[in-house]
């Protein structure tokens, strides 16, 4: 029962209001892509033990999607941010890096 701050409507939302939507920042590959690219796009997921970037939808709230940077082990939430971005904000990445110097980093 996580709580996540919805950056769209500003609510600290209980997990019952939210829907997990899988890994964030996956680049779409359509027609013209190689089999390997397409396989990666469709099936390969990081599923890390530790820092992870996820998509969530505030489904029983404002209905909007957003991104969350979260630790799958400790359940710490480093931050939530707009769904309309291809990469996490630099400040957020730096803050996580500072906290976890051993972290391999974003992407």
């Amino acid at each position, binding site marked *: 029962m996580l709580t996540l701050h919805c950056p769209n409507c500003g609510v600290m939302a209980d997990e019952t209001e939210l829907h997990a939507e899988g890994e964030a920042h996956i680049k779409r590959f359509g027609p013209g*892509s190689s089999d390997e690219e397409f396989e990666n796009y469709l099936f390969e997921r990081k599923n890390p033990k530790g820092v992870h970037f996820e998509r969530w*939808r505030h489904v029983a709230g404002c209905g909007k999607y957003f991104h969350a940077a979260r630790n799958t082990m*400790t359940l710490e939430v480093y931050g939530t941010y707009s769904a309309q971005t291809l990469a996490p904000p630099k400040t957020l990445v730096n803050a996580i890096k500072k906290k976890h110097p051993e972290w391999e980093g974003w992407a």
Partner: protein
Amino acid sequence: MSTRLADHGRLIDRSKPMNFEFNGKRMKGYEGDTLASALLGAGQTLVGRSFKYHRPRGIIASGGEEPNALVNMGQGGRFEPNQRTTTTELFDGLYATSQNHWPSLEFDVGVVNNYVARFLPAGFYYKTFMAPRAAWKHVFEPIVRQSAGLGKVPKDRDVDTYEYFYHHTDVLIVGGGVAGLAAAKAAAASGAKVMVVEQTAHWGGRTPVDGGEIDGIPAADWIEATVEALENMDNVTLRLRMQGSGIYDHGYALGYERVADHTPGDGRPRHRLWRIRAQQIVNATGAIERPLSFAGNDIPGVMLAGAVRDYVVNWGVSAGDRTVVVTNNDDAYRTALVLKEAGLEVPVIIDARAAVTSPLAQAARAAGIRVAEGKGIAKVHGGKFVTGVSICAQAGEGSSLEEIKCDAVAMSGGWSPVVHLWSHCGGKLIWDEVQAFFRPDPARPPLSHDGKGFVLTAGSASGALGLSDVLTDADAAGKAAGKAAGGKAGRKAAPKAAAEVHQAMEPVWIMPQGASIQKRMKMWLDYQNDVKVSDVQLAAREGYESVEHTKRYTTLGMATDQGKLSNINGLAVLSDALDQPIPQTGTTTFRPPYTPISFGAIAGEAKDELFQPIRKTPMHDWHEEAGAYFEPVGHWRRPYTYPKPDETHAQAVNREVLNTRERLGLLDASTLGKLIVSGPDAGRFMDMMYTNLMSTLPVGKCRYGLMCTENGFLSDDGVVARIDETTWLCHTTSGGADRIHAWMEDWLQCEWWDWKVHVANVTEQLAQVAVVGPNARKVLEKLGGMDVSKETLPFMQWADGTIGGFDARVYRISFSGELSYEIAVPASQGRAFWDALLEAGEEFGVMPYGTEALHIMRAEKGFIMIGDETDGTIIPQDLGLNWAISKKKDDFLGKRAQLRSHMVDPDRWKLVGLETLDGTVIPDGAYAVGEGVNANGQKNVIGRVTSTYFSPTLNKGIAMGLIKHGPDRMGEVVDFPTLDGTGTVIKARIVDQVFYDKEGAKGNV
């Protein structure tokens, strides 16, 4: 034998006797008793049989950690198995029976398992599954069936009600002992909103039993004054009879309140499940005493020393007249002193420690109690009750030095903090060498969203065992929690108690330390699951080195025990067998709930009509009045058919089909999903969502469209209407509207967020009626209004206007093959419009039809149905829908996936029609078999049926199915073996899937 004493019993009211029944025997107790204290007070030491060996079992503990004394409570609609006598408050008329025995508690046939115990070792179940089938069926299964299952399953419907409460608080304190109260006082002083929950009916925990002074007044008085002060604070909520059952992510906790277990039938909900969100949680959950592992430690009359003390002080009940105390620590001496003070015999305190000089030991000696140092129990004598013990040297192998007669044994292996709730959400433990227990590691608490700890521990739960330490620790925890939750920093001094001098305990995992295998086979580690020292040692020898594996192999600490009594002793024995320190072995995972909570509480009010919300169309009441038989479609209830009196459902469905084809049918199609897609980039977006080219659809026209997932599989279908230059209306399946809406939002918000499109789900804004049949136009023309002629409104077009005075949008689309108008009116007008159609349609033979008639008519026309012809592995090409897949578009969702080798494999099963040779109906889900056999000797499967019906129109069985190379095999006959056991094979000819009106003439008139 246990009995009720003439005095003592601070919790009972002797002026209020209560009658109850146990195994048919009438017994008497008092208000304030637990069922356990009342049973012991009535002399009932034998209360059940163990799970596996059916050994006689008595009460061991006085709280939630009790493993043995589980009974069937109540009768009929209030029957419930596995109720813990130690946590069941007595009430007048209580009815209970014991469990796990046949035919009676005193004489149990299942005890034979006890005599074949050496054939039921650790891992018995796993080993047995490897045995030959015959042995399993004839030898093992009857034994396992006899002994499996704890208690009986209720047969009647639960007559009680249950409910949920939701609560937000700054600080939640679990446990209302002195630690919980001291923490609450400190947290509340910070100004934070505080909730304190206590699982029993009393505040103060075990402290009143052991006495002592707090801040210069007797502990019991301090407890009373503190509770009163807390009750008077606006920012404090106190709840008794409420357990903190589990702690979950980010400060979420479950509270289990047993509102009316002790007052059944008084009209209140029986249980309440509290869903609590707290910023900080303080676990003041206390400690649990550990048993000692000596031979015969499960014989009724062997109890935990602290429990023996509780029964005397709290309920005026003695476990026996002559009680031997056996211990490795100081605390059990208190029990000896309490017994002595109550006028009972304590022939000896057997202490495993070599020399005992602590103040408590001196007090015992001064009271005239013999202390046998460096000794242990070699064996407990007795069967259904204790008759005596043999004393031995703890350091030796168990030669009896002395026999002592007694009728009870009070044992103490030391105390372990209750770390369950700390561990539920990831709090880590450290091994305390001095006190030989795992305790919460304050440096590694469960983390909240902000990366900071949200759980603290207070008092014994932290590992503090003396009253003085408990109070200091609890006060600090309360202050810290209040501050972390945003309160003021506390400055008041902690409550004070005199410091005590203790002699260190000495870890004793087996008694005596060199016990033989015969003795180890009689040392119970887990009473509930019948796991002995020898079982854990066997598991270690057989290679089970991980504690989690050993747990499952031996069942140690499983079921309701969850590591309460069995945990440390079991880990210690395993560590010893593996020759490694205990912290290296570690613990198993503690999982919520702390003790079992009722299914009723979990369900709450979600049953019957409140089980889930039901969506109703504007015409729902009419369907109900018409006697419709409903089927669930998502959260909707749709009429399946409208049977007349004396009509079977099948007859009703056939009538509805024929009437629609010959005269006039009405279908409530309001559940159909209706999504409006609008904006400057809507056309481009529609082209991505659908396989078809939707951007070129002219305004005023309709087009059937398919939607696929990125994996290429068909996900939804429906008719799309172009409303204006920038607006499309998408019909989805009834069950798919919300899913497809979310799907569109996903792509718009997360992939093409710069596209100017918005989507609105208007499903519930509109009531929609399909007016179907040769008389469809006649009834609309009679109602009057807009021109619905073929010329003005041809097939696959739509128009806005009025019909019979109703504002309507009319689509010329058909899912039945007949002349058909689907008419949308505002939802508020739905029922009136439906009534108007029925009235006007009477002269044209109007009849409503349900979803089954809809399905049959679409199958007669060879139209696919999402969920029948598709199952998440079907691409449109499998269904011969290539015509609906645009070749002009560079991209659409699913296009890339459909180019993969497996998707273009010519061997994929393809949709065809199937016509049985004898006119019968192929069973649902039947498979088609072909030539040859597979590696298992089974016939090769070449396809399966997807839709199969009796067609009243054609008066024979028709079906659609996916068949390997199907479209190339037109006219061939395939076999569908039935599974009814008769060996019947239905033969069906592969035909075109359109069975009725192949030219489409009927709908296009």
